């Protein structure tokens, strides 16, 4: 007789970041289906919470779901605000949260497994690439919440450290599509690149307007002045359409990764009816459920006190390749890939780090570039071309 292991999934299928959450939920459910058909001696029994993008619902809904189901494992959250809302509930129930999205770092919770990129795996290598190729005059734009504030703050310091200059920095309310004033400023300042930390509809509107600007003035073509991003993935390309083509994004996963692990994974997904392309959000949630299930299989329990030491001491075979979770921070070592958005929703991978980069959530290993002149070049060289 198979035992049932309850698992709570927390994703907002509506609201400003619904596209990311739907992708993540699809990834979690795809993994769940695989696990439940794998002939293990247990079945994962999901309970789905949908706070609909309302930050203050996360705590209440998760608390109720954990009480109802008796679950001790939770996969979910897209924004940092939602994660911070869930942490007290996770602590109270002595549960474990699996968080699979890129985020701004400066956290290492004992009851969270972080499988998405932190700043030394996204903004740091992204700027290392862009500053040396496009120039140091940057324009920063973001949605008015912690992801953008913090990612832009780190960017400001990296740009200043490089000798560059931030020519403008603007924030728009979550969900707002009123960005004409930002495009005006960009037209006036002609930055070498724009760092886009907008999310959802704001980002789609911004990319559409940037495309229009490039169409009227070739000086703003993406090849010359790209829009760069740390969280633009395939799961939003339906909303973005052609407008994003030519712009740059950095991610631990792209559907177009040519590795064997990814090809096998994609074939499996395609066979089970998953729509391509899949994205880092899909894969982040997928590997969360898979790694958890393997640990339950190995230990015969879903007790976080047993599961956590196991998952941080094993190497996991994932679509991202061989993956290790650092027991000191509970963060995954990840390989950043730099993608240029091409036609038909594909990211053309133009550079990849030579090896997985250990997460440094507090950026405490960063060596200031101007104090150690060679280190910047080392960071650039660490990204080698795979295609």
């Amino acid at each position, binding site marked *: 007789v198979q035992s049932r292991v309850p698992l709570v999934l927390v994703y907002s299928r509506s609201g400003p970041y619904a596209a990311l959450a739907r992708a993540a939920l699809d990834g979690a459910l795809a993994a769940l289906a695989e696990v439940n058909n794998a002939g293990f001696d247990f079945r994962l029994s999901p309970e789905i919470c949908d706070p609909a993008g309302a930050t203050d619902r996360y705590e209440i809904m998760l608390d109720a779901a954990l009480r109802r189901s008796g679950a001790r494992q939770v996969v979910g959250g897209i924004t940092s605000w939602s994660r911070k809302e869930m942490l007290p509930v996770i602590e109270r129930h002595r549960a474990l949260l699996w968080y699979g999205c890129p985020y701004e770092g400066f956290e290492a*919770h*004992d009851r969270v497994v972080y499988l998405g990129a932190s700043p030394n795996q996204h903004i740091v290598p992204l700027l290392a690439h862009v500053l040396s190729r496009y120039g140091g005059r940057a324009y920063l734009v973001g949605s008015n919440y912690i992801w953008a504030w913090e990612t832009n703050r780190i960017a400001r*310091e990296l740009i200043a*450290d490089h000798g560059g200059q931030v020519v403008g920095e603007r924030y728009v309310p979550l969900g707002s599509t009123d960005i004409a004033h930002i495009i005006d400023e960009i037209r006036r300042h002609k930055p070498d690149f724009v760092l886009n930390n907008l999310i959802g509809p704001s980002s789609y509107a911004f990319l559409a307007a940037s495309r229009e600007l490039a169409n009227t003035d070739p000086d703003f073509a993406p090849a010359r002045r790209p829009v760069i991003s740390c969280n633009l993935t395939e799961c939003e390309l339906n909303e973005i359409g052609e407008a994003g083509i030519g712009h740059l994004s950095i991610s631990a996963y792209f559907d177009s990764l040519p590795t064997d692990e990814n090809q096998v994974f994609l074939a499996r997904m395609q066979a089970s009816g998953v729509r391509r392309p899949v994205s880092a959000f899909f894969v982040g949630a997928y590997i969360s459920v898979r790694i958890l299930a393997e640990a339950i299989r190995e230990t015969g329990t879903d007790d976080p006190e047993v599961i956590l030491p196991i998952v941080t001491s094993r190497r996991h075979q994932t679509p991202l390749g061989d993956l290790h979770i650092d027991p000191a*921070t509970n963060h995954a070592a990840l390989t950043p890939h730099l993608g240029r958005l091409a036609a038909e929703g594909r990211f053309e991978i133009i550079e990849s780090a030579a090896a997985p980069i250990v997460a440094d959530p507090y*950026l405490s*290993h960063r060596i*200031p570039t*101007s104090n150690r002149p060679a280190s910047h070049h080392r960071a650039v060289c660490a990204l080698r071309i795979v295609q």
Partner: protein
Amino acid sequence: MTSRFRTPNFRGTTALVLHREGAATDAVLRQLERLGVIATQIWPTIPQDHAAVDFVFFDADRGYDEQFPWGGDAAPMPLIAMLGTEAPGRIEWMLSRGADAQLLKPVGSAGVFAALVVAGHAFQRRQELAREIDDMRSRLARRPHVAFAILHLMEREGLDRHAALRRLRQLAMSGQRTIEDAADALLTATGGQDVVARAG
């Protein structure tokens, strides 16, 4: 050229955790390790000859004055109080030791990074203010010297009091020093001490 990367970074700094072994100490040590801080637990006292450290965490619940090799609030580094009880007497004692930041017990997965940033900032601000106050006190104590210097200029050069003050200010400005330093220099250089002596 110094780095313009300003994100607080504590890697390679040192800390003492003056607290009994247990969950709170473990949690603090674990967070410090993540930040790259080289930390040591110690109890019950910090020996007089202990090597200098960059930060000290101390138990505000069960701590007492004799644990510290320095008196009162004269700690030569930022202090972070680990506070479980909110009994006013303990808070008062914590303040008397000059805590720059506090960390509430039970300690979980977070709080140490913010406490280090806040304590470092408060300590630096405190040091700057102390220097500023010392400077002000010294200048205040030498105010009579300014008056003597003006008297001296009036007597020696036949200036009225306004012109004498203007001259003294010019001397201070051209020498890029305070008016008190300029007054002292003038009195020393021109044998104006007799004015001081007569006034005294």
